[in-house]
């Protein structure tokens, strides 16, 4: 595209822009952070799959509730993906500045959210019967 194909980083311009401050940390930490992000993304994808699955489960759950559940699951997946990116960025920046890592706020949120969603799904299934 442009003549300045920077050989500086595999992530290109965005990496340089988002991670300008600090020094490069131990690469193993960067890789671990990336894998953690990917695990969260897979979780988000599983939530979206749950939403689409509920939307496809025509006979199991009645209409208004089915829509609400399907949209809720998919929206939770989108939110989780955004939060996963935020967490990746904050962790990477903390690593670069040699600061304490951000607190793991995502995991408890996820547990409570899933518990509520599971109860809602059971209630929905029972109401349909």
């Amino acid at each position: 595209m442009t003549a300045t194909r920077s050989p500086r980083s595999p992530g290109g311009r965005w990496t340089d822009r988002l991670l300008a401050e600090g020094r490069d940390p131990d690469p193993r930490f960067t890789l671990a952070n990336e894998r953690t992000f990917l695990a969260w993304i897979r979780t988000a994808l599983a939530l979206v799959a749950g939403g689409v699955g509920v939307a496809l489960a025509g006979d199991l759950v009645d209409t208004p509730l089915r829509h609400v559940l399907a949209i809720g699951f998919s929206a939770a997946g989108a939110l989780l993906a955004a939060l996963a990116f935020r967490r990746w960025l904050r962790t990477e920046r903390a690593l670069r500045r040699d600061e304490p890592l951000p607190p793991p706020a995502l995991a408890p949120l996820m547990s409570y959210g899933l518990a509520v969603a599971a109860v809602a799904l059971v209630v929905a299934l029972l109401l349909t019967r």
Partner: protein
Amino acid sequence: MTAPPLWDRGAQPERTALAWSRTTLALLVVGLLCVRLAPSDLGAGAAAAVVCGAAALQLRRTGRSLRRRGDRLPRGRRIADAESVLLATGLTILLAVAGILLAV
């Protein structure tokens, strides 16, 4: 092409690439579920094309990233890849939005 020299015994670059592959597989599965929800044949075809294209792009990035990292790690150069992370986030949000739109 010869394999790059082993950089660390934890095989972290390889595990990271495998994590990317797993994520791409999950993306494919969810994407094809969305295709199943599409209201028309045309919509389904378009959705399938987008999903497969995105998965192919991510797989290519994964392979390239692994090779580049094998090259850069022994030299102590930067390996963070914000663009791939942004792409994965964007694709997941796109699928979620598609799921929401198709559910109604």
